[in-house]
């Protein structure tokens, strides 16, 4: 495509001399008034020959009159094109559309987040359960068993908890209380609404040593996923000994760690019938021993 170099000053002079407006000239040449303005201000003096011819026609002069002096027509491949290059237009287009792109991306992220939220809430709620059972207890003296169920935080979920007890274990009390049909043979069953961490505690006694395969087995399930219960982890057996159940290391002393474990791990045991005062007295004393005749713990001063 042939290009020519026009003299913008001459173009402006001729246009004004003939009383023509930029709009008129632009209409004849079929460009914008901005382009005419740029040509006149010599911003883009090299233009297409066909545009130069129309410009000359609009100004009612010969083409030579608006060309720069000593200007020959040059083929485009030898002449740098100084009209706004396509890349500049693209740059301007990009700068115009990037807020749109940003907005689209933001909307996309929001849609993805909302979709994820609904997908997650439609899925079964994950729970876990752990049994806290003392390692030893004295025959026919009450000991606590706590099952800690962890559900999703800030979501109330109905928990179905089942606990099968070994033979010779007798349940005395539970918290939460069991429904009338909640205990059948040696199975406890709770249906309880829970949020985050919930403790299910029962007080039991053991009259005879457990057989090796006779252990505590239980499961917990969220009501919306009751077909997929989780097994209750943690200790599943207890042995008979002459040690208090709170004396976890069996050294006939209840130390600071053991008293804190009683309070931290098993919740409010006093209301379930566990003699907390006795445990504190043992902790404050120098030790204890089991009196088999009186069937009581004697506190050593």
């Amino acid at each position, binding site marked *: 495509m042939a290009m020519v170099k026009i003299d913008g000053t001459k173009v402006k002079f001729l246009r004004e001399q003939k009383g023509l407006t930029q709009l008129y000239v632009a209409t004849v040449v079929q460009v914008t008034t901005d382009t005419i303005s740029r040509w006149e201000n010599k911003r883009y003096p090299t233009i297409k020959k066909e545009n130069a011819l129309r410009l000359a026609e609009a100004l009612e002069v010969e083409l030579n009159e608006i060309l720069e002096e000593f200007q020959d027509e040059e083929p485009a491949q030898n002449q740098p094109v100084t009209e706004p290059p396509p890349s500049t237009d693209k*740059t301007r287009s*990009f*700068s115009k559309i990037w807020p749109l792109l940003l907005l689209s991306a933001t909307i996309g992220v929001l849609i993805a987040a909302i979709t994820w939220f609904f997908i997650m809430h439609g899925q079964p709620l994950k729970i876990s359960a752990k049994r806290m059972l003392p390692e030893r207890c004295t025959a026919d003296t009450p000991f606590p068993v706590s099952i800690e169920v962890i559900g999703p935080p800030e979501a109330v979920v109905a928990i179905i908890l089942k606990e099968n007890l070994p033979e010779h274990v007798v349940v005395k009390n539970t918290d939460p209380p069991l429904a009338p049909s909640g205990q059948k043979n040696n199975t406890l069953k709770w249906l309880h609404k829970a949020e985050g961490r919930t403790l299910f505690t029962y007080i039991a006694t053991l009259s005879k040593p457990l057989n090796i395969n006779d252990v505590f087995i239980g499961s917990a399930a969220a009501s919306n996923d009751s077909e997929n219960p989780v097994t209750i982890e943690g200790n599943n057996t207890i042995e008979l000994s002459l040690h208090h159940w709170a004396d976890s290391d069996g050294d006939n002393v209840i130390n*600071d*760690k053991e*008293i*804190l*474990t009683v*309070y*931290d791990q098993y919740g409010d045991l006093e209301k379930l019938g566990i003699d907390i005062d006795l445990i*504190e007295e043992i902790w*404050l004393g120098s030790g204890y021993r089991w009196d088999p005749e009186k069937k009581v713990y004697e506190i050593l001063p």
Partner: protein
Amino acid sequence: MFVKRLRSSALKTLLLLSLLSCFITAITATISSAEPATGRYISVSGDTIKLQLTIASPAPQNLILEQYVPPGTQILSTSPKARKINSKSGVVKWLFKGVSPGVTIVTMQVSPASATQAVNGILRYRLPGGGMSEQRLAR
């Protein structure tokens, strides 16, 4: 020009993101380094020892405070009431149950008053994983 502008914007964004991540890391480190419970002596005046327990959130459920004075020191009064006072061995124990976040002031009046200069103490509580935390009271 567009590339330059783009580079400049990218650099600014990168810088902002770096600053934000540094800020979040610093906050997380501060929070995670905060002990659930701490204790320090705030005054020893005459025969009275005053200390402050600061419980953070989440708080330990229960904690034990143990103070040691020279054996034979007489404990005239404690507030809150100590769970165990053994003047012979010089051990005074408190058991705080159902602890809430906040500040608790503990005072102890002893005789002779000079015993206040030799007092020291330990704070014990269970960690969520089951371990024990044992901290000396700061002065």
